[in-house]
Each structure stands twice: as C-alpha cells, then as structure tokens.
C-alpha cells in the first residue's frame, strides 16, 4: 500500500532520483553536533506552544478593569494584553504549562545557539567554505535575541514594561535618526498604545518567518556542503564518517526531539518562570526592585550598568550615555562576529577549504582570543546582577559596581594568556586529553619507585572500526551516458538540467 503510494508520487515527482543519497547521508557521531539540534528542536517547541498562546492572547494596550479568575488582581486597571495573559495562565487548562514551556524553550533556544556558536568557533568550522553559513547563523542569533525580547515584552507586566522603556531610550540614543526611529517604532512618544500590537506582529509573524527562512538556508547549506568532522580513524577532507540518516540518525534525532520536549515540559511544570501575576501590570511611574531581563539580554543590561557616566556634547547636539553600551557595543560585537572568518583568513593566510575540524588546543591564538572575548561578555552578564549580588553578599553597591568595571577589563586580559598557555601545554603533552590507564607504582629493593600502567579492562578503550564506504554517488555516475567535455568536467544531459 505504502509502496504503491510512494510509486504514485515518485512517478510524478521523481523522488527516487537522489532519494537514496538522502537516505545515505552521513551524520558524524559527536556530542557537540547535538547543540545545533537543541536550537532546532527548541524552535519547534516555540512554534507549537506559541501557536497555542496566540489563540488566547489579546495584543492590545487598551485599559480594562480586571475581572478574571485571579482574585488578587480583580478591580485593578490593566491592559488587555496583561489581562489576557493572566487569563490564559489561570483560566485556560494547560495554559500555564504552555506559557512556561514557551518561555523556557525561548531561553533554551538562545542558549543553545550561543553554545553551538562557540563550538563552531573553537573548532574552526566557520572556515572556508562555511563563511556564509556562519553569517547566516549569526543573523539567526540576533533574530533569536530580538524575538525573545519582543515575546518577553508582550504580557505588559511591570518588569517587561520597564524593559520596553529602556528599549525606547536606547533607540532614541542613536545619533541623527534615533528619535525618529523611536517615534516610528512606538507610533509616537513613549509609551503610546501601538507598541504591543506592533511587537506582537513582529514576534508572531515577521521574525518567526525570517528565522524559518534563514533556518532553512542554514540547514540547506549544511546538507549541500555536508558536515564537518573531527579528525579520527579514516576521517579525511574528502569524506564524512558517521551514521546514515536512515535509520540510525532518524531514530537518534527523533529521540532527541522528544528528549528536549520532555525536559522543557518538566521545566514548564516544575520550575516557575516569569510569574507576571506577582509583578503586577506595567505603569510608567512604577518600578520594582531587582528588575532583570531574560538571561540573553544580561550582557546588554550589564554593559548599561558598568558604563561610566560619560556623554558627548556638541553645541546643540549630544551622544547620550546609553548609546555606547546599548548600540555601539552590540554593533561592534556582531560586526566582529560576522567578520571573524575573514579576519582569521587574513591573519593566517589560510585560504584552503576545510572539512576537518580543529582541536581548540591546536589553534592557541584563536582559542585564546575567543576565550578572552567570551570572558568579557560573561563578566558583563554578571554585571547585570550588581544590585542582587550587593544585596545577597551584603556588600556596598559601589564596591560591586567598581569590581565589575575592573573585572571586565582584567578578566579578559588574564584569560587570554592563561588559555594560550594551556593550549600550548596540551599540545606539548603527549596523550593529553586521552583516557589514561591508572599507574601501578612499584617500589624496588633499592628504594626507588617505578610506575607501570595497569592492565586495560576489556572494553575500557573505545575502539573505532575502519569506516566503510556505503555509497559512491558522484557526478559521473549520476550522469550516465554523459561525455566528459574535458578532464573531470561533464556536461549535464538536457533532461537533468
């Protein structure tokens, strides 16, 4: 039955041409390749839970008197956005779970993109021919952060409203066009009533479409260029070693999708996130203590905090303080991220194609640079908690802030040489990073000591088998009957064009 159905479709779409190549596509077996899959699957969860939420959420700043099922808020004047979020949380069965899963999945989404990106960076997977995909991935990170912020802002609670106010201030800080941009974005002066419907359409339609499109391009390029792989038995620049798509990878990856869904569901059920009913509705003149954005905005918030109180004044004009940490710093950050493959190519003079990955230790300069830069952002991230830390550790706010101002300069300066040194040491140590056998220390009759490696447990060492070619699809074979035009070049027969 299925076979006949397939034959029917196949006769019309010719799936079998190339279909076998797809079944045989090889996926390298390395845990670090799962990081991107976490991002992919948390995006799937975001879409599924997000669609559910759109059915109940009302994107409107229109003020209503709350009269829903959450008693403590009854009689309060709130926006429809806030009221509908409270209602979908408490009055819709499974609503709270969906909302919390959505929020957790968003945090996991951005987090896995960042870790995935670090893996790509430290193993040199961004090198030729994958520079374009590196940039597509970086764009996906920006979009993920933006869309996370938009979604976080939608419930119009006290904490997220404060975030929107800061976003307005950062937008208006841009020289020349800032105030215009802010007014066009908000439909007038802050706060206005347009921002929630606008953020909504951006959050549920425009940015998801962009993410979906770029994600397809990201994966399309991955399939077309095939995976990178680590050096190992049989791994060469001109092959890929691992498990075939069907059935091994399909089983594993589908299992992984369920695993991530399950973990997100457990988090959504058991770990509270963004309890907006406790924060209360947003009022422009109210603010609460320990106002913090979601974690992926932490580096920006931290930068806003540690920035010294400088501004640039011209006659009649100025560049406000918030511009430097709020616009310039992230701008420079992402410019550097986009340009890194080319910078590195320039610095090393290495313009060759690479499909084998580097071990981070073998590229000490890159690794040390990456570690130092990451350390900088990590300190900024920590700086977004100055008030909480001061309170928790009973230190003065002054001391904590100055510590972070100093740390964000000192830590990268320390991390760079230390990482560099560690890389060099690891390079020089034979067998470093490999599993070691315990030593048996024997004392000789003269009183000397001798260390002898203990006998191996059977099966203790991971033995790799020789890889076996499973397919040899090449242009020559696919173009049966084609005549070579010149050495290695085939002209594609008409019916295949």
């Amino acid at each position: 039955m299925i076979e006949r159905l397939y034959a029917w479709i196949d006769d019309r779409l010719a799936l079998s041409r190339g279909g076998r190549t797809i079944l045989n596509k090889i996926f390298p077996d390395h845990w670090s390749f799962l990081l991107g899959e976490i991002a992919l699957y948390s995006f799937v969860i975001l879409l599924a839970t997000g669609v559910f939420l759109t059915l109940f959420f009302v994107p409107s700043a229109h003020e209503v008197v709350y009269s829903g099922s959450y008693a403590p808020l009854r009689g309060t004047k709130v926006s429809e956005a806030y009221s509908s979020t409270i209602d979908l949380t408490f009055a819709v069965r499974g609503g709270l779970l969906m909302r919390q899963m959505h929020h957790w999945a968003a945090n996991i989404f951005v987090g896995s993109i960042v870790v995935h990106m670090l893996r790509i960076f430290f193993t040199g997977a961004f090198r030729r021919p994958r520079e374009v995909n590196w940039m597509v991935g970086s764009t996906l990170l920006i979009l993920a952060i933006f869309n996370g912020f938009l979604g976080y802002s939608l419930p119009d609670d006290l904490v997220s409203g404060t975030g929107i106010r800061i976003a307005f201030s950062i937008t208006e800080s841009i020289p020349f066009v800032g105030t215009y941009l802010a007014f066009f974005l908000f439909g007038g002066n802050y706060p206005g009533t347009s921002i929630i419907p606008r953020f909504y359409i951006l959050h549920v339609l425009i940015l998801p479409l962009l993410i979906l499109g770029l994600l397809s391009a990201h994966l399309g390029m991955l399939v077309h260029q095939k995976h990178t792989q680590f050096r190992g038995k049989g791994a060469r620049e001109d092959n890929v070693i691992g498990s075939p798509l069907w059935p091994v990878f399909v089983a594993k990856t589908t299992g992984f999708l369920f695993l991530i869904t399950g973990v997100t569901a457990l988090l959504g059920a058991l770990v509270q996130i963004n309890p907006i009913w406790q924060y209360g509705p947003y009022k422009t003149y109210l603010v609460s203590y320990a106002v913090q954005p979601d974690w992926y905005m932490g580096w920006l918030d931290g930068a806003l905090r540690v920035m010294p109180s400088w501004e640039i004044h011209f006659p009649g004009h100025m560049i406000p303080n918030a511009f430097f940490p709020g616009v310039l710093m992230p701008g420079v950050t992402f410019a550097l991220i986009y340009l890194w493959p080319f910078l590195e190519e320039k610095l090393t003079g290495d313009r060759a194609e690479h499909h084998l990955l580097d071990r981070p230790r073998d590229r000490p300069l890159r690794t040390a640079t990456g570690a130092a830069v990451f350390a900088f952002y990590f300190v900024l991230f920590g700086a977004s908690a100055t008030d909480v830390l001061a309170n928790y550790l009973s230190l003065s706010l002054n001391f904590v802030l100055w510590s972070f101002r100093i740390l964000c300069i000192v830590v990268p300066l320390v991390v760079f040489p230390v990482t560099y040194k560690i890389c060099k040491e690891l390079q020089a140590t034979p067998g470093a990073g490999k599993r070691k056998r315990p030593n048996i220390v024997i004392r000789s009759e003269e009183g000397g000591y001798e260390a002898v490696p203990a006998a191996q447990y059977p099966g203790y060492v991971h033995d790799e088998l020789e890889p076996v070619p499973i397919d040899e699809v090449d242009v020559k074979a696919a173009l049966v009957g084609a005549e070579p035009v010149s050495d290695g070049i085939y002209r594609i027969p008409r019916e295949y064009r």
Partner: protein
Amino acid sequence: MTNQDTATTKFKVRDQMPDDSLHSGDGAGGDEEVIPLSAAQMQVAASNLLRAELVVAVCFFLSLLGFAGFGAAYWQGASDIWLGTFLGIGAVTFGVALTAWGKYLMPRGPFEEPRKLMAVKPEQRELVIGDFASRGKVAIERRGFLFKIMGAAATVFGIVVAFPLIRSLGPVPDKQLDKTKWKKGSYLTTLEGKRVTVKSIDVGSILTVFPEDDIGGALSQTVLIRLQETGDIVTRKGRETWGPHGYVAFSKVCTHAGCPVGLYEELTQQLLCPCHQSLFDVRIGCEPVFGPAPRPLAQLPLYVDGSGNLRAQAGYDEPVGPGFWYRGGTT
C-alpha cells in the same frame, strides 16, 4: 563471520541507479548491487542485546504511561504541574528509548560517505559566466537605454514605497521630547487626582505627582520630596525659591535609560534608580553621584499659593529623561 543474526545481515547500500531514459521507474531493475559489510560494522553496539532491548522496551512502556497520564490528568482537570510532569516523563522516556534504540540496536558503523570539495573548477564556472554574459549582452547591452530607464523607474518605485511605509509608522518627534505638560501654575496632583498641599506629606517621605491634565503621564511624572519641616531648600545657585517649605520636586524619569527613579533613601537623602543603580543626591539638585546616569534629574520650581497648594513656578527648564541627538546643552 559469526552466526549471530545481526552479523550475517547485508547492508543494502546500492540499488538501481537512476536510468538515463525519461522513464526512470519502468522496472529496468537488474543490476542491483549489494556490498557486504564486515560483521563488525553491521553488529549493533550493545554488548548485551537482551538487556538493551529490555531497557528500550521499559522506556517505551514508561512513555506510554506518561502520555496516558497526561491524558488522564487533563481529563480530571489536574493542575499544570501534573500535566507538565506527565508530558515530560512521557516525552523524556520516549526520547531515551528511541535514542537508545538508534545508538545500541542499529548497525553500528561507522560508515563513510565521499565528499567533493566545494571549490568549482574554473572551466566549469566560466561556462556559466560565459552563458550569463553572452545572453546578457544580447538582452541588455544592446538596449542600454531601456536598461537605464528601467533602473530609474525601479529606484523611484523603491523610494516611494519605502518612504510612506516608514513615514506612516508614527509622527516625527518635533519638540515632543523637549517639553512636558508642566507649566506655570500647574497644581501638583497625586495619581488619585488630589491636589497636593504643604500639609500633604511628612518629612522624609516622597510622593509621585503629575500636572492635573496629565495624570499618569510617562514624561510628566515627578517625584516630590519633603526634606524638612520649614524653610526653603536651595539645591543650587539660582534656585533659591524653587524648594519652599522643605519641599523639592524632580523629574522621575532617569537621565540614563528612562526608568522611574522610584527609591528614596531617607537617611542619605538620595534617589536610586532601580534599573541600573544610578544614585542622585537630592540636596545638590539630584546631581548623579554613582552609576551610569550622566546628568542630574531636572528640578521643578515650586511655590505655595494662598490656599497652601503646591504649584509649579514654571515647567521644566530642560528636556527630562535620557539624552537624544537633538537635545542641546549639558543641563
């Protein structure tokens, strides 16, 4: 080769190549090629098949229970905690089972796939470029004028489409950021709409006030502080009459990122912005003494009228809140 059932399997890796005729599916068949893989390759990774199968089966069974539990919990109207826990247990065990199946009970490999370098041979590229250029020559170069006028039309189209789209999004800022609704004689009014008098608040406390025609206004919000029982507060030269009866009033919009500067420390007479911890010293005109805020909060000049109401002598003498390009001057 051993006699284990997995070891004798042949992994079918090649079947029929696509026929070069247009009828690729007309059953030409025949030269199906099967490469026998080594026994080790086809063997599964599990050292104990029975145990691996058992673990997978148990996990699938648990996932069945989990999903069923989710259904039951939903049916019974249980809390979200139960819904999520059952869903989570079901999905996690299902995921573990499927992953373990793939990892331990399917051909272990590793398998190899050839890869071609991405770099294209120059001759191949030249064919494409040649085609593109030669056809383009016919189409465009000989009709250079048409191409140019088309380009002009398309550019104008792009501009006129983009401009109204952006322009429709909102009004231009104009002077909206420079002025608040405070003006000469404005009554200081609470959120509830009550006019504030000299007796309204105690020494050491604060109150958020608005002009009567903009209650709750984001830019107009002002923090009124009573520093002492009587006497004028002079925060700065030239502001001798701005703080009557121990009262001073400052814009509540932080000069850093616009958050409401809502926390008052009575002991040090400082205002703290809870967003990025800028501290403003009220006594010296809310000069920032700590944190990223670059400018003092704007001060509202007050006076007390005949019936004891607190009123504004004038509006703010500078734009309140965070900076922007068209904001001139330091204060």
